[in-house]
């Protein structure tokens, strides 16, 4: 039976992992991820979840143990934040390079200095080149729903890539919301046990994983296979979203959710918890001022839905990205990716980037409204000189 409970995003992640019947859970504590770890340990210790918890001595070892456990054929889960995620970096490539569908909850937190437990998306956006699927979610329910989905996506034989479900620390991880805890039997039906056929360490069928090559014979090809798997994962993410919706009555839109796009002249695009605020602003500007503004909630940052966004946004005059992360020296990571996919010879929408919410600085309804109105005024401009805008810098 499904039940409803008041849950934080962290507990929602722990429930998601329990529902997915994860088998090995190596972890190391870091704020704001810690309650995910503590809750899963509680599930294991009180017998609600049959799994092995390994209290690792560092995140580097966490991801190594996750790789090893998953390579043995056990469904493996972990969670981390910020400095912990960066500490894993080397082994993130190993998980994806060996094609192991580990799933990780990334509870987003600023990468210091300045050191803080407050949030933005800079930790996970920074991992974009590790060949992990990354899905950003908006609230605790979506966190819970996405953990079983993540396994079904990653374990699909067309994909076999690790998956990160990313949600912001504090604002999602620590605030309570009413969350539906899915029915276990239905989840078992949705997500059968993981019994890998391709990549598995089995003495009866020996294979070496993580090979070293002395010339370039296979490197390009193996990377290209990862690229192809990433490409194929787009369809799988959509299919799994459909299947989940059919089973549980909630659809999230797969790679991204677009609203009010038809006839929109300006589209606001964001990801994570900001989606709730931006959607509300867009709705108000449409309903009350009648402005032709649309909204996109980006969910998959990897695979980046380039072609799909291009199809969605080709008719608009201006697209605005609001993102809680920045590649210093260039612009917001989402903006940079969007720029390449909207690039066209004939006509390209104006593309503007707002760097907001760094370090968890509140992004208010009013602020987003002002951004929307500013860009709406600019929408016919032939070009702009300041596409990347650090919006909330005090004293500027």
């Amino acid at each position, binding site marked *: 039976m499904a039940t409803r409970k008041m849950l934080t995003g962290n507990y929602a992640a722990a429930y998601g992992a329990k529902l997915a019947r994860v*088998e*090995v859970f*190596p972890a190391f504590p870091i704020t704001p991820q810690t309650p995910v770890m503590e809750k899963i340990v509680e599930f294991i210790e009180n017998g609600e979840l*049959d*799994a*092995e918890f*390994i*209290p*690792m*001595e*560092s995140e*580097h*070892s*966490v991801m*190594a*143990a*996750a*790789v*090893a*456990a*998953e*390579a*043995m*054929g*056990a469904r*493996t889960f972990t969670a981390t934040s910020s400095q912990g995620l960066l500490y894993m970096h*080397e*082994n993130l490539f*190993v998980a994806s390079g*060996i094609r192991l569908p580990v799933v990780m909850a990334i509870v987003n937190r600023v990468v210091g200095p300045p050191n803080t437990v407050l949030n933005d998306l800079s930790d996970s956006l920074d991992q974009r080149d590790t060949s992990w699927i990354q899905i950003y979610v908006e609230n605790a329910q979506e966190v819970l729903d996405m953990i079983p989905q993540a396994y079904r996506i990653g374990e699909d034989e067309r994909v076999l890539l690790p998956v990160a479900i990313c949600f912001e620390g504090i604002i999602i991880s620590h605030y309570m919301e009413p969350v539906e805890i899915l029915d276990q039997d239905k989840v078992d039906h949705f997500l059968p*046990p993981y*019994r890998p056929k391709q990549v598995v*360490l*089995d*003495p009866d*069928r*020996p*294979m*070496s*994983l*993580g*090979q*070293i*090559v*002395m010339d370039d014979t*296979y490197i390009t090809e193996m990377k290209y296979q990862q690229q192809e798997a990433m490409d194929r994962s787009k369809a799988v993410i959509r299919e799994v979203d459909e299947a989940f919706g059919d089973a549980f009555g909630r659809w999230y839109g797969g790679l991204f959710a677009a609203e009010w796009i038809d006839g929109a002249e300006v589209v606001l695009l964001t990801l994570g918890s900001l989606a709730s605020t931006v959607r509300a602003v867009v709705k108000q500007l449409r309903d009350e001022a009648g402005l032709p503004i649309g909204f996109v909630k980006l969910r998959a940052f990897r695979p980046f839905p380039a072609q799909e966004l291009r199809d969605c946004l080709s008719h608009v005059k201006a697209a605005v990205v609001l993102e809680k992360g920045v590649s210093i020296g260039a612009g917001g990571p989402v903006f940079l990716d969007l720029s390449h996919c909207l690039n066209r010879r004939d006509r390209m929408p104006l593309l503007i980037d707002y760097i907001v919410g760094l370090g968890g600085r509140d992004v208010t309804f009013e602020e987003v409204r002002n951004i929307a109105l500013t860009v709406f005024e600019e929408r016919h401009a032939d070009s702009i000189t300041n596409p990347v805008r650090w919006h909330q810098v005090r004293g500027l």
Partner: protein
Amino acid sequence: MINNPRDALFKEDYFHPGHPLCPGCPGGMALRWIMKVLGRDSIANVGATCLCLPTHVYPHSLEIPSLYIAMAPSPAGISGMSAAIRILKRKGVIPAEKRITVFAISGDGSTADIGMAALSGAAERNDDGLYFCFDNEAYMNTGIQRSSTTPQFSWTFSTTKGKVQRKKDLPKIMAAHDIPYVATLSVAYPEDFVRKVEKARDMGPGFKYFQIHGPCPTGWRFPEHKTVEVARLAVETGFWSLYEVVHGSFNITYRPRKRLPVVDYVKLQGRFQGLTAQDIRTLQNWVDEKEEGPGS
């Protein structure tokens, strides 16, 4: 089970001939014997060491499943694999009675330097597996640079005037972790080697640590046919000693009848070429002062 250690050495091979290690490399011998003892129902975690070459450099491989993750975390590989085996046995995916031995092998730099936290973590948790540190006393894979287990006065490309510090005593540190088994090994004493690995294999679950003294002709600068001779002299001079620590109780497994002077060992090796008489006395004092017990 093998009762006579000699029998193990005649068992089948899971380590293939034609490997790409340097001529005279003791790592090939060690790995071959380990494989003979642990057999086909074992799984390897290999760290960044010259021993990657025969195990993981395509198209070379062992004849058992093996995983290379990265330089530091092969102990964590033991943790992840042994946890996976436990849960998969509970769920009946792996038959409960099937014995799978998980082991890791890595170099001294990987073990004593970059992987020290991972090693200590796996040992403190007493995760189930055998860990072999292949101690050739430097970073050899990257072309002979010092590690914390390089002995004092040794030349390497990063200690061109001789290393200032003494060799880190890792077996002693591991014994302090209160794990079921710690042992030192030498390729000059194959029976002692095999007996200890068998003993650890047949113990109950827990973390077992081995350190293999591995004279490296390439890095230590001696002729490649002298590997076993150098290995033996290390033990006969007391530079390296053979012991085991079983559940905390220390036991010398081979005691030279009369210790030879350290100079007999040192003079065969180009890495100690520049040593003065005073340096050799210092090394002799180091050997003499090492009390018996872990690390002697």
